[in-house]
């Protein structure tokens, strides 16, 4: 029984951990795509730039010596936010603002931007992946003493969960309690009327896009804790981020949170073979067990999650939390 509870906790932790990575990378897109309706295929590259910013901040702090080398992550988060937000701002002012209301052109143009940014990194920095080493306090993990299976909750994973919560709370208060947040909500719900009230809509668009991009930068900083960073890093995340926003319901930040967590937990449960283990004592279930064992690896789990999402979107095309009533047309 204790074993079962321990397994459950590990499962929950890992699922939430995968969900946090999904959520932190999708949060910026939930604003840019969800609220503004801009299909930004360069979102992954903004994450990549955030990751490289973290790499450079690490190098600078390492050069400064030990007390500094331990805290570079703290400095890298705002730096990654600012770099990605600045690039996002240039992208919005230079390209996207000319394409509002034209999703297909936006899709193509931002795809082009994504190629340019990747090539830019390849030529100016290196085509090879670089490594970001987590500071000592983020290495290792919290040991939980249990009977027979020793378990460890990695600090890096816990850090990402905390960072994700901080970002979600920050975005929530910014949108709901600040005057710029109110302007953003107004413009995203009714652009023409907002302009007629005297809200500088062009400034609001630029700011909204920059904040969404900056959040991608923070996500980039977070993913350096999970693996090495290369020009193609963003490509590994772009599909997942759109998936989270679409499943959650476009335009609904809360939907993105729920959707990221559900996708994270389901991915973990399938990938770890938990279903197979749970069903294995039952003799009649052997074919089903074999089925789940076949999918019990992280890449096969992804295949199954995709299939489930496609099925889900057939039933609820507008996501978990669809927009209701009059608002739906906006």
């Amino acid at each position, binding site marked *: 029984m204790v074993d079962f509870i321990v397994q459950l906790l590990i499962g929950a932790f890992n699922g939430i951990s995968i969900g946090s990575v999904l959520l932190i990378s999708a949060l910026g897109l939930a604003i840019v795509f969800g609220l503004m309706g801009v299909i930004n295929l360069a979102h992954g590259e903004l994450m990549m730039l955030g990751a490289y910013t973290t790499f450079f901040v690490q190098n600078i702090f390492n050069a400064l010596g030990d007390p500094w080398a331990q805290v570079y992550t703290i400095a890298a988060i705002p730096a990654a936010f600012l770099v990605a937000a600045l690039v996002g701002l240039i992208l919005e002012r230079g390209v996207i603002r000319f394409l509002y209301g034209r999703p297909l052109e936006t899709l193509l143009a931002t795809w082009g931007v994504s190629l340019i940014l990747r090539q830019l990194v390849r030529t100016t920095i290196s085509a090879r992946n670089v490594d970001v080493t987590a500071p000592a306090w983020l290495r290792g993990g919290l040991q939980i003493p249990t009977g027979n299976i020793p378990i460890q909750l990695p600090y890096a994973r816990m850090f990402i969960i905390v960072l994700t919560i901080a970002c979600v709370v920050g975005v929530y208060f910014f949108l709901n309690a600040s*005057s710029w947040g109110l302007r953003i909500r107004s413009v995203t*719900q009714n652009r023409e009327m907002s302009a007629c*009230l005297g809200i500088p809509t062009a400034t609001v668009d630029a700011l909204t896009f920059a904040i969404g991009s900056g959040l991608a930068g923070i996500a980039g900083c977070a993913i350096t804790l999970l693996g090495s960073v290369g020009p193609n890093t963003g490509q590994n995340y772009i599909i997942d981020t759109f998936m989270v926003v679409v499943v959650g319901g476009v335009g609904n930040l809360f939907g993105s949170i729920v959707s990221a967590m559900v996708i994270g937990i389901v991915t973990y449960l399938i990938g770890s073979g938990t279903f197979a283990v749970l069903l294995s004592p039952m003799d009649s279930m052997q074919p089903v067990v074999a089925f789940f064992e076949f999918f019990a690896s992280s890449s096969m789990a992804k295949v199954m999650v995709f299939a489930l999402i496609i099925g889900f979107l057939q039933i609820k095309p507008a996501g978990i939390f669809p927009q209701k009533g009059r608002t739906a047309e906006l």
Partner: protein
Amino acid sequence: MTNPTLEKKADTNRPSRPILNVSGLNVFYGESHILRNVDMSIRTGEMVCLIGRNGVGKTTLLKTIMGLLKPRSGSLQLFEQDIVKKSPDQRARMGIGYVPQGREVIPRVTVRENLLLGLEARPKGITKRNEIPDEIFELFPVLRTMLHRMGGDLSGGQQQQLAIARALMGKPQLLVLDEPTEGIQPSIILEIEAAVKGIIANTGISVLLVEQHLHFVRQADRYYAMQKGGIVASGDTQDLSQEVIQKFLAV
């Protein structure tokens, strides 16, 4: 450049200076010619009503004044300043308060936030510690009890009152009202009418009104009648003849 606010106070009682001047305005939707050589002017402190049947271009004219549509030719002056090249938000900050047809309340922000958004037309915009002034609740008492409801959840009449209140939050010099009584129950029509009269009496602002209700039309000082995209008649509302009313009002 003169400051319109200061000067307005000096001559509130004498409607003389034009606040808005429209001349030779031509507007197209694609290739169809909607407004044809429209001339119109509104003086300080004056209430002007625009009448005409459905589809003659009244709303188009208001949208062009607000900057939502671009004229192909002609001029638009606010406080003797050319505004054709100005964006809607700049025009709002220059002193036009717009209450559009269909009210266009922001649906998923609260009534209080909708009202605060009206402050964006003022130089400071929304700030941290804004309060809704009591005058707003004196004009529209129903809003006081609804401050925390979502704008989209109000009834049509309440939304209309909210839309007018929101425009007033910006302390406009010219209030533009597009069919404020359309689709609203009669008792609330009278409330809205009384509120608009009260606003004019208290603030001395100018009002441009598109309206179908004769009773409301008669409150205006002057009228312009439109037909097929052009102004075909104008004059004092006191002189509105039965013939003109039958021709231009859909009642």
